[in-house]
């Protein structure tokens, strides 16, 4: 059952893509969650709907839109390439962007729930103790949101490991560059005699998924105990 070098490479790449995707999403997801819960502005519902689009659109459509916007000749992709030499289509960075977009609503939802559960009274208490807005956010709101942030990050990481449609559409299936585990599995199934490889990758994905669930449960319990909610 030893993994081949190509499969190990796919595993490594999956982790690299998922990690980048989560790191990229975290600050934006926190901001969007805060705006959706605490913001009082016109267009809040439109923003809410927009953030949730990747959940309801076929992943291939998201991949296609990314290709249109972030391709070398796309309005954003073209500018990124001209100004910074950054290319997203058919690269690992592009794979990270695609998985980030797909897992973004999951992350926002988890954070939103935890922010809604934060007692505004505690923020008021911090105010009377002399804490300004940013100070309060950093020392009270953010630490109290931590369970949701962790849950959101773990969920998004797991979803990123498994993202298929948007990735293959936007960055194709290039071994060593964009071929993550599900794409490698897809290739193995397409290859005559690839049954054993397919089984190994499927088993690996299953183990990763279970491991991720266990890790997130353990983290959530630890944090809840720290906050005295258990």
């Amino acid at each position, binding site marked *: 059952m030893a993994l081949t070098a190509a499969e190990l490479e796919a595993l490594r790449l999956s982790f690299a893509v998922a990690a980048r995707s989560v790191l990229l999403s975290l600050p934006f997801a926190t901001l969007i969650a805060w705006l959706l819960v605490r913001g009082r502005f016109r267009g809040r519902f439109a923003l809410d709907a927009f953030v949730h689009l990747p959940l309801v659109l076929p992943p291939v459509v998201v991949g296609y839109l990314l290709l249109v916007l972030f391709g070398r000749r796309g309005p954003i992709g073209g500018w990124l390439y001209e100004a910074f030499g950054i290319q997203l289509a058919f690269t690992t960075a592009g794979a990270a962007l695609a998985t980030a977009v797909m897992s973004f609503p999951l992350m926002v939802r988890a954070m939103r729930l935890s922010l809604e559960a934060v007692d505004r009274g*505690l923020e008021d*208490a911090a105010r*009377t103790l002399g*804490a300004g807005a940013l100070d309060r956010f950093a020392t009270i709101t953010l630490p109290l949101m931590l369970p949701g942030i962790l849950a959101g990050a773990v969920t998004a990481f797991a979803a990123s490991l498994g993202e298929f449609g948007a990735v293959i559409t936007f960055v194709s299936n290039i071994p060593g560059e964009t071929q993550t585990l599900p794409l490698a599995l897809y290739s193995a199934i397409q290859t005559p005699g690839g049954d054993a490889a397919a089984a190994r990758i499927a088993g690996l994905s299953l183990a990763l998924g279970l491991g991720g669930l266990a890790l997130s449960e353990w983290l959530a319990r630890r944090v809840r105990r720290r906050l*005295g909610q258990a």
Partner: protein
Amino acid sequence: MIHVDVALRRGEFTLEARFEAPEAGVVALFGRSGCGKTTLVNLISGLLRPERGRIEIGGETLLDTASGRCLAPEARHVGYVFQDARLFPHLSVAENLHYGLRRSRGRAHIIEYDEMVALLALAPLLDRRPHSLSGGERQRVGLGRALLAQPRVLLLDEPLASLDAARREEVLPYLEALRLRLALPMIYVSHAFDEVLRLATHLVVLEAGRVVAQGSLNDVSLEPALTAIVGAAAAGAVLEGQVFEADGATGLARVRVGHAGELRLRASGMAAGARLRVQVLARDVILSDRAPAGLSVRNALHGHVVSLEPQGEDACRALVDIGGAQIVAHLTRDAVAELRLHAGGEVWALVKTVSLRSQVFPLDTRAPAPATKPVTVSAHEQG
């Protein structure tokens, strides 16, 4: 001075409150639930903004809608002790205490960390998390946290309301100690009159968003508006006096009230010179038109009727002056007619010593902390 004059409308509820109080001492905001007490302290803290108003404490204007001035809560330096403590659950007790202290840089300190920990007996709790504390412990930590932010005034919003009687006793003595130790104005919200009796030096009575009575505890205790809230059974004059003789042989202490009035209380635990507060419940007072003889009652206070006011169909409320102190008596109209009581008429007020004993509230049994300027706050010193 504390000067508050605010107006706020919220749906059906309108708050239009105005009061003034001396800075020294404890101002009690007293009234039934829903009368606007908490709204009023939220306005003072800045967590709520009034439609119009002016709030001034110790010469500093925190809010003045006329000139457009409104300090943010974080710039008001108002210590707030919440009914539900609101300790930060992700921080230890010590970190909670440091939260305000760390943000008080550049302000004159009224109390230091170590002294606060000693004064509120917090040392065994410092490493614990808020969720493992009892209700009384939480309130003590909340109190310490608010004070370490070195505020100019301390707001206490029913800090004992969510505690049972035993837990209350875990907090009340500390509040009394703080009152004696700190020269800090305190605004204490309560709907429990026994807390007011123990802590307050100035009383503001709220009813449906309006101030219906305010003044020293003694003055307000004579107001019918207060009777309407505490109920006839708990109403009565609150007197402040000084023990001038405590006799172990008779077991009685003689207490001077007003300039010439004298009350006899049970002496246990009282020393000559001690100041105290006594509530004489109006229903415990018997009036007589002649000096009584052959009665067990120890207090036969000679004085005169100041006023008589009918109460309901068959009752009457008499205000009686005994040597410069005034007490209230609830009587039947029948008794008023039979004794021919009238304003200015001579009268003896009879009060059983045992019924007074339970209403004795020492004002200064606790010595101020050493090495600090003794600050004893009482209505006496305010004059």
